[in-house]
């Protein structure tokens, strides 16, 4: 038996023993998601046990090194773990910006001390992180951010405001872009700092979106003191880290587009809702054409995600192509939800009530409108493709 086969058997046996039965079904709603943190609210003992067991094994961050609490798995092993989890329909034990965003940044840019201090609690789901990037005056032009960070000798002093901070009101710590040099050109005066959301001077205010509730907040910093060892990387070079993370984020957002073999196709959804003729074809022929086009693009997009991953594995850089994935994936997702709304007709408009799960589809549809705005708008992605990939000159800015 090869090592990988042995690993697969062990993994299967371990999951069989440790994944609670109630954690082996798809999440039904946001309430089933487990975000961990100091004030974690577990919906069941099973949910807590599942997180604790996976966290102890390091499998909430399978590919991170063991010394930082991670699973220490190689790519092939991580793939097997994922397959085995899919096989038993195991829910993700943890949703975490720490795992998705901060961790990769710390692994690449953090000091040894920072990695040892911050990574293990992320893996165990003990500290919940949020991301402080956008500001009211710095959206698409993120590098123009103004949150002030002054060197006060033994500490930094932070004043300013962030916006669109996901789950700021429920998070324990923030990784945050701040301006540390107001004289330098805008990209060269930004630093990347970490601090506790319980620090004096931090306050948050939730934002209501067109879809109803949202995870987004406004976050205010009023004379927040931050120890200087919580600066990540080099002072004034935080933009490098930000760019790295934005690329990472784009890939993640892009990945939400397209259909996959695991989920129901748009075609199936429409046939279930509206019916088919004697040949099994959706009765609304105009809608059928549109769905076919969206499904073709969805498949081709998924294949492009797959190809990009395979090329990266083979040593070819992804680089600015992540902008293409972000652009196309989010536009596609908007198209998919338009078609889902069309397929369900008047019932798709329901906003309250059990039948519609309090307007789940309508709210999701509205929420997708933000996909092509957050993480860099579609227009910004097209700018990046034009400049970085096509080599076209910068437009003259007025």
């Amino acid at each position, binding site marked *: 038996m090869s090592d990988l086969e042995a690993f697969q058997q062990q993994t299967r046996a371990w999951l069989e023993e440790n994944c609670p039965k109630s954690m082996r079904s798809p999440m039904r709603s946001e309430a089933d998601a487990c975000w961990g943190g100091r004030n974690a609210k577990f919906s069941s003992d099973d949910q807590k046990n599942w997180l604790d067991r996976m966290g102890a094994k390091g499998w909430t961050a399978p590919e991170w090194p063991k010394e930082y609490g991670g699973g220490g798995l190689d790519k092939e092993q991580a793939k097997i773990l994922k397959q085995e989890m899919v096989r038993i329909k195991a829910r993700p034990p943890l949703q975490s910006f720490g795992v998705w965003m901060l961790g990769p940044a710390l692994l690449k840019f953090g000091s040894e001390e920072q990695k040892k201090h911050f990574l293990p609690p992320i893996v165990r789901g003990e500290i919940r992180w949020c991301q402080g990037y956008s500001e009211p005056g710095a959206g698409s032009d993120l590098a123009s951010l103004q949150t002030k960070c002054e060197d006060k000798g033994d500490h930094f002093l932070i004043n300013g405001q962030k916006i669109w901070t996901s789950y700021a009101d429920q998070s324990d710590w923030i990784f945050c872009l701040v301006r540390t040099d107001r004289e330098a050109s805008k990209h060269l005066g930004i630093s990347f700092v970490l601090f506790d959301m319980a620090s004096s001077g931090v306050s948050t205010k939730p934002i209501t979106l067109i879809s109803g509730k949202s995870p987004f907040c406004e976050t205010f910093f009023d004379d927040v003191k931050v120890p200087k060892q919580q600066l990540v990387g080099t002072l004034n070079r935080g933009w490098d880290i930000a760019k790295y993370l934005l690329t990472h984020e784009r890939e993640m957002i892009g990945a939400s587009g397209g259909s996959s073999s695991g989920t129901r*196709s748009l*075609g*199936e959804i*429409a*046939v279930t809702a509206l019916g*088919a003729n004697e*040949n*099994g*074809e*959706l009765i609304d022929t105009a809608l*059928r*054409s549109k*769905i*076919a*086009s969206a*499904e*073709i*693009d969805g*498949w*081709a*997009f998924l*294949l*492009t995600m*797959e*190809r990009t991953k*395979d*090329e990266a*594995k*083979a040593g070819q850089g992804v680089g600015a*192509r992540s902008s*293409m994935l972000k*652009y*196309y994936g989010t536009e596609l997702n908007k198209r998919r939800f338009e078609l889902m709304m069309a397929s369900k007709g008047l019932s798709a408009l329901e906003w309250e009530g059990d039948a519609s799960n309090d307007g789940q589809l309508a709210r999701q549809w509205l929420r997708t409108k933000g996909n092509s705005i957050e993480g860099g708008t579609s*227009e910004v*992605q*097209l*700018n990046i*493709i*034009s400049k970085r*990939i*096509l*080599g*076209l*000159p*910068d*437009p*003259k800015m007025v």
Partner: protein
Amino acid sequence: MALIYTEEQEMLRDAAKGFLNDAAPVSSFRALRDSGDALGWSRELWGQMAQMGWAGILVEEQYGGLDFGLNGAALILEEMGRNLTASPFLASSVIAATALRGASDDTKANWLPKLAQGKAVIALALEEGVKHDPSATSMVATKSGNGYRLNGAKSYVFEGIEADGLLVLARTDGSSGDETGLSLFMLDANAKGLSADAVKLLDQRNYANFTFDDVEVSGGDLIGKEGAGLSMLEPALNAGRIGLSAEMLGASLQCFETTTEYLKERKQFGQVIGSFQGLQHRSAHLYSELELVRSAVLKAAQDFENTPKHAGMIASLAKAKSGEVAILAANEGVQMLGGIGMTDELDMGLYMKRIRAAQELLGDYSFHANRFAKLRGF
């Protein structure tokens, strides 16, 4: 299987690119067109390709082929698309070679060695109407002694002029529209009662209309069983569709790169027009679409070899998507080049015309989107 090209495939691509850039650039296609050449492709060039083994790229080794796989053929077609290279490669080496895999040993021994050497060109006589629709076939094959007699007509047969052999789909039972009752025949193009008329299409390639008047074929010329013609032909059609997709990918990329270069040179209002966001965003969108086409074509060729069960669906995906994007690439090319894009002097129009034909052949967007939907259960 990883969705990337193997080293062997990359080497073949490099070889194809090098050869075609030298021996068959767009200028040679243009010269061929201007000369009014009836054949539409160069026998000398085809001979050189055959020398390199391309003619038999899908033919089994025992018949003198390379048995390299469709991914290799697709790479060659992509480079041909870039150069607008005219040749019988698609018709003979991709479609016919695939169809003949199901033929009797005698038929194979009779045709495949010649095909692999490039000495025989075989075309597919399929269409009878103006849209691709194999099950609509109404040409009749009537039992006659040991064999059959064919009567009817086939139109827009690419590489039909001066073809040595013809693959013919004809009805041995049922009526137009039935998917059953069709049979596939391999016959000599010199057969008695068969007449060909050249028909000139906008892409200046080789097309013929055929009339069949009591054309005799022997029972041994039947490929597969009587009535199983459509399923015998299906892999060949899919190979052809994937081949056309690859060709259109190459042609689209050439349009796109030419256009992008022009955007960096052409100045208006005191700046290069490539600095205008209105053009940048359209270019970046086209770039994204082309990435999707590349993935679809690569996957289709891989699945054709490794996962035949999926091949039809992915072939339709590739053909639909590549045709759609190729039309966009040509349209954007002409529009962004502006007035000069409309002139015959520039190559953009040549690409636009070939793309228009290639996206129609073996099924256009509607045909394949429809088929994709059916295969996906809606």
